[in-house]
């Protein structure tokens, strides 16, 4: 149970980063940290004590009962790729914003009224 709490703490560190930090790069970084925390927690849900990776090997027959849960691993593989796509788009947006506003400070990027 403590492992899940530590993952949730890492998630909260990410939220802390997004709320308090002012420049774009740190916001992208803290979103990355949130993504790591969620992915890790998802895989930790699937771990079974004393069991091995879910790959059958030719000459070492392994009982399926002694294998880890493969489903969270498949889903987290997808969410890691989603995380990379998101980082790429946020980085592209931040670069264009720097080109237009000459700063990364989100408080100075205030062209939108209201």
């Amino acid at each position: 149970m403590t492992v899940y709490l530590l993952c949730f703490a890492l998630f909260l560190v990410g939220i802390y980063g997004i709320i308090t930090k002012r420049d774009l790069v740190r916001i992208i970084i803290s979103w990355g940290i949130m993504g790591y925390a969620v992915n890790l927690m998802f895989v930790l849900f699937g771990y079974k004590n004393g069991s091995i990776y879910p790959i059958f090997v030719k000459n070492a027959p392994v009982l399926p009962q002694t294998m880890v849960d493969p489903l969270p691993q498949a889903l987290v593989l997808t969410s890691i790729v989603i995380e990379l796509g998101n980082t790429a788009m946020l980085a592209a947006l931040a670069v264009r914003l720097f080109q237009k506003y000459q700063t990364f400070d989100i408080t100075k990027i205030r062209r939108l009224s209201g």
Partner: protein
Amino acid sequence: MILPFFIIIPLLTAFVITLISGERDDWAVILSIIVEISLLILSVFCFFRVDGTAVIYKMSNWKAPIGIILVADSLSIFMLIIVSFIALTSLIFSVHYIRHLSPSWNYYALFMLLVTGMNGVIATGDLFNMFVFVEITLFAAYALVAYGNRAEEFEASFKYAIMGSISSAFVLLGIGITYAMTSTLTLANIAEVLKQKDPMVSLWIGGIFLAGFGLKAAIMPFHAWLPDAHSSAPAPISAMLSGVLIKALGVYVLIRLFFNVLGGIAIFNEVFVILGTISILVGGFLAMGQWDFKRLLAYSSISQVGYIFLGIGLGTWLGILGAVFHLLNHAIFKSLLFYNAGSLETAFGTRDLRKMGNVAKALPVTSFTSMVASLSISGVPPFNGFFSKLIIIIAAIQAGRPIYAFLAAIGSLITLAYYMKVQRFGFHGKNILQVEKNAVSFGMNSAMIILAVLCLVTSLLIVPGIREATLDTIVAVIMNKTGYVSQILGRQ
């Protein structure tokens, strides 16, 4: 059997557009319009074929808990019709409009991916799959919001991207915890397993999903990103965002999760009612003070979505009927208003109501259709807005909550006030403005006329004869909460 084609066809078009994309984008335009028309016909055909029971399609030939299933009951096909219809009108509108910004095939490929994402979210019966298709829709929306290459658009798109990523992180956290508790991902199985768990689990999962998908539906506490994103996007895209995206990604998913999966817990219904009413009032007040036409429309979207949440939160038959009907109406007249803003922008190059003048003579179609849209959004009798708001208010009174009914009525008056302001300044103002010759093309005008006609036609849905065939089947799906689960598990 037709269900997967709602995702395959637009996805294949997006890939083919990127393959054949040359210098000019006319190929992309023709292809996407043909595809959109075929999707619309397909969805209307499906709506009358499905007779109340859910149609199940097993992906890659595996049963429900093992593989992924696509589920289509009348609620999801109703949403598919709205998505394809508004997408069709947006495409017709953007043929000429996008030539002003920067004509290239990217726009049409991303538009097709946006439609794929929404169709995927609506059709799927699997929790993680819904998350993946929500991500596709959001990525396409970020790129399209930043399509105009101006500084405000990058700023709006960055803020939208950050809010979207935070909500996706919450949704993924929710999916993780749901999987840990129920160890299955199909919505029907989750619902069945959650019944045996202690209710604290459902509350916790519901809370996280409310935070995640509430952010996408821009309910009151999470509405901050919507005015920036919807006002600085190109007009057809903000029509898609306001009219359809916050409904398909926000309202539809919350209905599916909180009614069919979690079985309509009383506390969350109460939360919907309270948040909905706050959205109506605050959205209305904020819209009063706006002079930028598109920002005013964005704020009014928040308050109109508040009506939908009020209707759903009541949980009674009439409340849900009003909410579903208002969902359809709002998609129509809000898209129409954004098209009007777009045509004003191309004609006069400004969105500020104070600078606009006597548009009635210069752009007759735009001013007439915007009058129709303003009347129907503020609930003037012959138009559709009046009936849906009336049903919600009556439902609130019947459900024994006169305060919310009263606040909803006030909200409707506020809407009337700021739309009259739009009409007085925007369309019948004093200063004469010269307009470029045929700035507003035939395509833009025809899109506006189609939607204006629809504002009148949809008010016929209230007639008892037609209502049974259409709206009642949808409300029946939402009302018998566990019906969805038993149909899917029953007919594996």
